[in-house]
C-alpha cells in the first residue's frame, strides 16, 4: 500500500498536477507518525500509512494555513473519516472540490492515541469511531490506495463513547451538569481542541472577540464552561466525530461524548449526518419548511 501511495505522490508531483502532498511520515525514531509536506518527488518515499496515522490532515486545507496554500495545489492523504471533514469544508465553501487531490487511504482502524501502540492493532486501542466506521473504503476520492475492505459496521453502534453516552443519558440533568462541570474544571484554556479541528476555521474565534468579552479568558469554571459549550454548539450538525479535539486535549476532557451526542441529536432531528455528501449543506445553516418545530413549546 505504501508503495502505491509513494508512486502516486511521485507521479502527481512530477506531472505538476499538485505541488505538495500532505501526508504522514515517521518521526526520527520511527516510533510515531507526524504530518509531512512533500514538495519534491524524490522525497515521496518519506510517506507512510499505518495504524499510527491518527491525525486528520484536513486541517491543513483550511484558510489559516497560508504558507501551505502558497506551496500550490495540494494532494492529501486521507482516511475515510478525514474525508468527512473535507466534505464539510467543501459544502461550506472553504475548499473547492477541484482544489484538492484526495488520495483516499483504505483503513482498518487507527489507534486512539499513538502512545497506545505496542506493535499490533487491536480493538482495545481503537477509538469508538473506528468500531463503527462505514467509510473504511474512502468515499470521496480522486485515487484510492490499499486493498478494499469488506468491514461492515455493527447495526447498533458500539464502543466506549456510546456506552458512556447511554450512562449519562440515564442521569438526571443536574447530575449530568455536575459531571460536565467537573470535567471542564480541568480545562486550561489552551484551545488545543479548536486548533486541532478543521471545522473550527473561523479567522476570528469568539474567544478572541473582546468587544464585549463573550468568553472570559481565565481558566476558571465560568470561563471554561462558556468556552466548551459555545464550541460544542458551533459544531452541532457539522462535527464528523473525527476525535481530533479529544486526542489533542492535554487534560483529557472527554469531548467525544459531547460531539457524538450532538451527532445523534442532529441525526434524530434532521436525519442528517455530516461528511457524506459535499453537495448537501449542514442543517444548522439551511432553512427548510419541513424542519421540525418541536422545540417550540
Amino acid at each position, binding site marked *: 500500500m505504501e508503495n502505491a501511495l509513494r508512486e502516486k505522490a511521485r507521479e502527481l508531483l512530477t506531472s505538476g498536477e499538485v505541488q505538495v502532498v500532505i501526508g504522514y511520515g515517521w518521526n*526520527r525514531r520511527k516510533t510515531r507518525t507526524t504530518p509531512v509536506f512533500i514538495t519534491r518527488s524524490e522525497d515521496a518515499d518519506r510517506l507512510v500509512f499505518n495504524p499510527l496515522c491518527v491525525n486528520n490532515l484536513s486541517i491543513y486545507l483550511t484558510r489559516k494555513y497560508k504558507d501551505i496554500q502558497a506551496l500550490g495545489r495540494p494532494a492529501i492523504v486521507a482516511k475515510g473519516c478525514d474525508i468527512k471533514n473535507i466534505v464539510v469544508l467543501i459544502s461550506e465553501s472553504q475548499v473547492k472540490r477541484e482544489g484538492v487531490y484526495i488520495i483516499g487511504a483504505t483503513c482498518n482502524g487507527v489507534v486512539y492515541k499513538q502512545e497506545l501502540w505496542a506493535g499490533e492493532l487491536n480493538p482495545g486501542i481503537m477509538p469508538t469511531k473506528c468500531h463503527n466506521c462505514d467509510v473504511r473504503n474512502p468515499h470521496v476520492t480522486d485515487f484510492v490506495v490499499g486493498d478494499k475492505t469488506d468491514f461492515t459496521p455493527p447495526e447498533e453502534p458500539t464502543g466506549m463513547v456510546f456506552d458512556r453516552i447511554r450512562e449519562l443519558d440515564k442521569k438526571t440533568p443536574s447530575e449530568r451538569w455536575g459531571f460536565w462541570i467537573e470535567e471542564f474544571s*480541568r480545562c*486550561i484554556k*489552551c484551545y488545543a481542541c479548536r486548533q*486541532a479541528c478543521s471545522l473550527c476555521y473561523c479567522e476570528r474565534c469568539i474567544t478572541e472577540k473582546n468587544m464585549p468579552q463573550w468568553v472570559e479568558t*481565565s481558566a476558571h469554571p465560568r470561563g471554561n464552561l462558556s468556552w466548551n459549550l459555545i464550541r460544542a454548539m458551533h459544531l452541532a450538525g457539522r462535527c464528523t466525530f473525527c476525535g481530533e479535539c479529544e486526542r489533542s486535549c*492535554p*487534560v483529557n476532557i472527554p469531548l467525544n461524548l459531547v460531539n457524538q451526542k450532538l451527532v445523534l441529536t442532529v441525526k434524530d432531528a434532521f436525519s442528517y449526518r455530516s461528511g457524506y455528501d459535499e453537495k448537501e449543506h449542514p442543517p444548522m445553516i439551511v432553512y427548510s419548511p419541513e424542519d421540525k418545530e418541536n422545540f417550540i413549546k
Partner: protein
Amino acid sequence: MTDKLLKRENLDKLIGSVTVGGGVFVAPGMEARRVVFREVTRADEMTHDYIIPVNSYKDWVFPQTEVIARFAIKKDGVDLKGEKIEPPETVVFGARPCEAASLASLRSVFTWDFIDEFYTRREDRLTVLTVACTAADDECFCTTVELSPESTVGSDVYLKETADGDYLASAITDKGTAFMEKYSTLFEGASAEAKPKELFIPEKIDGIDLDRIKKWLDNKDHYDDPLWAELSRKCFGCGACTFSCPTCHCFDITDEGTTYEGEKRKNWDACQFEHFTLHASGHNPRDAQFKRWRNRFMCKFNIYPKKFTSTGCVGCGRCIRVCPVRHDITEVMEAISGR
C-alpha cells in the same frame, strides 16, 4: 553528606504533617487517565509508576489564573486593592531532576529588575523533593541539554528509590536541610543495606550541540532561513507545549467582572497563539505559525541563555509527548546543529 532513609510507609505521615498545619503537598497521582501533579492529602492518592507527570508543577508558583488586584467602580471614583498573598508551605514530592532545574529559569524571569512577588513569595515557600529517575521514555532528553537524573540543581532534597520502594534522601539546599530537620522523625538513619536502585540515564542525542544552536541563532540572518517554515509547518498553534513546559512563563493581564466590580487577573498565555502579538492596528509581527514557533525555540535556546539562565529547556520532553502533531523539538535542535 549522609543520606537519610524515608520509608514508603512514612509518606502518609509526611503528607499529614505538612498538610495538618495548612500546608500543601503536591505529588504525582492519577487523574483522568494520566499522571499529573496535584494536591494530595493521603499517600494512597499518589502514584509511583510514572516517567514524569504531564503537567508542570509550575502551577504552584505561577498559577494558571490568579487575582492580582480587585476593583470596584463607584460614583465618585474607583476602589482599588492590590492582592496580597501569603502562600502556605508547599511541598512538591516526586519532581524529576530535569524539571527541578526549571525553577531557577522561572525565577530569573520573574525577578529580572522588577520583582514579581506573586512568584517569589510562592517559590520561597516551596520545597522541591526530587525523586531521581530509574526509567525514561523516548521523549526524555535531559542529557542532551546538559542535565541528567543525577543532577541536583533546583532540588531541595534529592531522593533515590531503593529496591524496597523507600527513599534515600540527601539535602541539597538550606531549605532542604531545614525540611529534613523539621520532619526529622520521618527521616531515619539509613542502614548500609539500603541500596538505591540504579538510575536510568537516557542516551544523549548525538547530533545535537547546544552551543552551535545558540551561535546559529545569534546570527539574525538565520531568522529568515527557510528551515523554520519547513520544520514547523505542521504546528497548528494549540499552545499545549507552552502550557505543559516548566520554563514557559508568558502571561496575559486581563480585567474580569461585572460592570461595577471585578478583578485584574494574571493568566497563562502562549506565544503560539495568533493573538499573542497582534497589535490593535491589525499588524502582527508574527503572522504565521512558523514565526510563532520560531520565537519559542529562540526563547529557549538563545534568549534564555543570553538574558536569564543557561537552562531555557530542561529536556523533560513534555512538549513532544503532548503535541497533537508530534512536532519534536529535538528534531529541530538536530537540524540546526547540523547547519
